[in-house]
C-alpha cells in the first residue's frame, strides 16, 4: 500500500513538471511552483587491509576497499531534488540519488518522494517516502556538503543500512526559551535494504518501523533525543544451505541445532534504537557529540553502544577538526556448545558467523574542510582505527581474529547547486 502511495506521489510531482515546465517564466513571481536543486560528492578513499575492507556503511558492501587500494565508489554520488509547491500549505519533493549500490533500479534511487501539508503554521504532516530521523545526520548523511567531515562517523552511522521509509510523519514546532522545540513522530516500512556480510547478501526490511524525536535548538545549541523500533524481515538466499544443514544436524545427533536455526532467523524479531545528541555551533567553534544504543531480539546482532565527539575550529574558509568515535558491544557473542564430531565443521562455521557480528572499535580522525566557494568544499581526512574482535563494520569474507589497526585516507570534493 505504501509503495502505491509513494508511486502516486512520485508521479503527482513529476508529471506536472513536464507539462508546466515553462509556466513559471514571470520573473516577478517569487513563489516558484517548482525548484530543481542538487548535491554531490567526488571522493576518493584509501584504506582496509587484506581481510577487512573499508565501507562507508553496511549498504556500501558493493565496493569495499581492501589493502590500502583506492576507490571512488564509496563516497562519490550525485543527488537531484525537485521541490514542488502546490499551495502555501501543500508541498512535495522528490529526490533521486545516483551512487554505487547493489540494486540500482529507479525504485532504490528514489531517496525521498513525499507530499507535506501544513495543518497549522507549526504542524506539518507528510506522506510518502522520507528520511528516517534516527540520529543527527541520518536524514542528510548523503549530503556531505552539509557537515564538517568526509562522511558521518563510521562507528556511529556504519550499522545503519537504511536511509528512508515509506509511511507518514508529523512534526510540531513551538518556541521554548530562546529557541524552538520540535517534536516528530513517524511510522511506516523501510524495504529492500541490501546488506552484505559473512552470510552473503541479505535484503533487510523493517516493517513496521516507527519512532519519535524531540529536538531543541537555538542559534548555537542543538540537543536531541530519539527512539525508534522496527520489526526485521529478511530474505537471505545464501543462508538456506546452512539452514538445511542445521535441520539435518538437529535430526542426527545435534539437537541444539534446531534452536540455532531459530536464532538465525531474522524475520519477526524487533530491533530498538535509542539516541541522544548535542551540538554547539558558534564561530569559530563547532562541537558535536552523539551517543546511541542499538538492541535487537536477533541474537546474532549483539547490543552495541556507540558514540563520537568532534571539535572543529574555523580559520577563515578552512575548518580543521578532530573526531573521536567508538562502537562496542555490551556483551560478547559467547561460544556455541560443542557439537558431535561429524557436525564440528558446521559448528565452527556458525561460531565464525556469530563472531563476525562482534564489534569493538575506536577511531581518531584528523581533517579539514576548506570552503573553496560558497557552493564547493574540499575535505581531507585521516582516520586511525583500532579494531578488536569481529570487525563487523568492515567488509569481510572470512573471519578475523586478534587486534589490528587500520588507516583510512579520504579526499572529497562536495558541491551543491
Amino acid at each position, binding site marked *: 500500500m505504501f509503495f502505491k502511495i509513494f508511486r502516486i506521489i512520485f508521479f503527482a510531482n513529476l508529471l506536472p513538471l513536464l507539462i508546466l515546465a515553462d509556466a513559471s517564466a514571470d520573473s*516577478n513571481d*517569487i*513563489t*516558484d511552483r517548482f*525548484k530543481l*536543486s542538487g*548535491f554531490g560528492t567526488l571522493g576518493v578513499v584509501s584504506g582496509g587491509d587484506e581481510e577487512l575492507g573499508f565501507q562507508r556503511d553496511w549498504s556500501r558492501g558493493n565496493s569495499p576497499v581492501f589493502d590500502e587500494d583506492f576507490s571512488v565508489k564509496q563516497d562519490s554520488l550525485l*543527488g537531484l*531534488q525537485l*521541490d514542488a509547491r502546490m499551495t*502555501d500549505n501543500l508541498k512535495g*519533493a522528490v*529526490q533521486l540519488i545516483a551512487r554505487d549500490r547493489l540494486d540500482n533500479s529507479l525504485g532504490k534511487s528514489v531517496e*525521498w518522494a*513525499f507530499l*507535506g501539508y*501544513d495543518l497549522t*503554521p*507549526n504542524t506539518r504532516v*507528510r506522506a510518502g517516502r*522520507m*528520511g528516517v530521523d534516527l540520529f543527527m545526520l541520518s*536524514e*542528510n548523511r*548523503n*549530503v556531505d*556538503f*552539509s*557537515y564538517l567531515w568526509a562522511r558521518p562517523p563510521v562507528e556511529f552511522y556504519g550499522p545503519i543500512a537504511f536511509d528512508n521509509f515509506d509511511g507518514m510523519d508529523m512534526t510540531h*514546532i513551538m518556541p521554548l526559551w*530562546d529557541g*524552538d522545540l520540535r517534536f516528530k513522530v513517524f511510522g511506516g516500512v523501510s524495504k529492500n535494504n541490501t546488506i552484505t556480510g559473512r552470510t552473503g547478501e541479505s535484503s533487510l526490511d523493517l516493517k513496521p518501523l516507527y519512532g519519535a524525536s524531540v529536538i531543541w535548538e537555538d*542559534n548555537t545549541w542543538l540537543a536531541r533525543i530519539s527512539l525508534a523500533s522496527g520489526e526485521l524481515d529478511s530474505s537471505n538466499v545464501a543462508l538456506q544451505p546452512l539452514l538445511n544443514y542445521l535441520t539435518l544436524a538437529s535430526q542426527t545427533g545435534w539437537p541444539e541445532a534446531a534452536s540455532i536455526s531459530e536464532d538465525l532467523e531474522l524475520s519477526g524479531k524487533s530491533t530498538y534504537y535509542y539516541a541522544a545528541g548535542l551540538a554547539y555551533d*558558534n*564561530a569559530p567553534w563547532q562541537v558535536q557529540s552523539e551517543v546511541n544504543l542499538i538492541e535487537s531480539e536477533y541474537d546474532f546482532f549483539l547490543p552495541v553502544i556507540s558514540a563520537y565527539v568532534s571539535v572543529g575550529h574555523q580559520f577563515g*574558509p578552512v575548518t580543521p577538526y578532530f573526531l573521536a568515535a567508538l562502537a562496542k558491544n555490551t556483551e560478547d557473542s559467547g561460544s556455541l556448545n560443542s557439537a558431535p564430531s561429524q557436525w564440528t565443521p558446521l559448528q565452527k562455521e556458525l561460531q565464525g558467523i556469530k563472531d563476525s557480528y562482534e564489534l569493538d572499535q575506536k577511531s581518531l580522525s584528523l581533517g579539514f574542510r576548506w*570552503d573553496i*566557494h*560558497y*557552493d564547493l*568544499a574540499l575535505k581531507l581526512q585521516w582516520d586511525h582505527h583500532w579494531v578488536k574482535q569481529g570487525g563487523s563494520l568492515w567488509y569481510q569474507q572470512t573471519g578475523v581474529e586478534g587486534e589490528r589497526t587500520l588507516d583510512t585516507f579520504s579526499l572529497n570534493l562536495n558541491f*551543491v547547486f
Partner: protein
Amino acid sequence: MCFAADVLVIVNQANEVSSLDKKQIIDLYMGRYQNFPNGEAAFPLDQPPVSEIRTIFYQNLVNKSVAQMNAYWAKLLFTGRASPPRVMTDSLAVKRAVRENKGAIGYIDSVDLDKTVKVVGRAD
C-alpha cells in the same frame, strides 16, 4: 547617517507586520518558521551569494559565513524541511519583489531604502 553595515529588513507596505525582532528575522531566514508571527505565509528573499550585503547580513544575524549558511541550508533543503530564501540579482530586484508580493521579506543596505517598502527590523 548611513553606514555600509546598516542592513534593514523590509516588507510590503500592505503587510500587517509592523516590526520583527532579531529572533523572528532569524526564524524566517533560517527556515524554522515559514510564516510571519501573524500567520501569513512569508517568502524570504536573499541577496546574491557573492555580495557584501549578504555577508554582513548573516554575519550580524547568526555569526555565520555565506558558505556556512549554505551548508546549513543543504541540510534543511535536502531533508525536505524547508527551502532556502529565493536569491535575487541585487537590491533593486529585492525592493521590486517586496513591492509586488505581499508576503515577501527582504534585506537591503539603508542607502537603498525608499518609500515604496516598509522597514520592520534591522540586522546589526
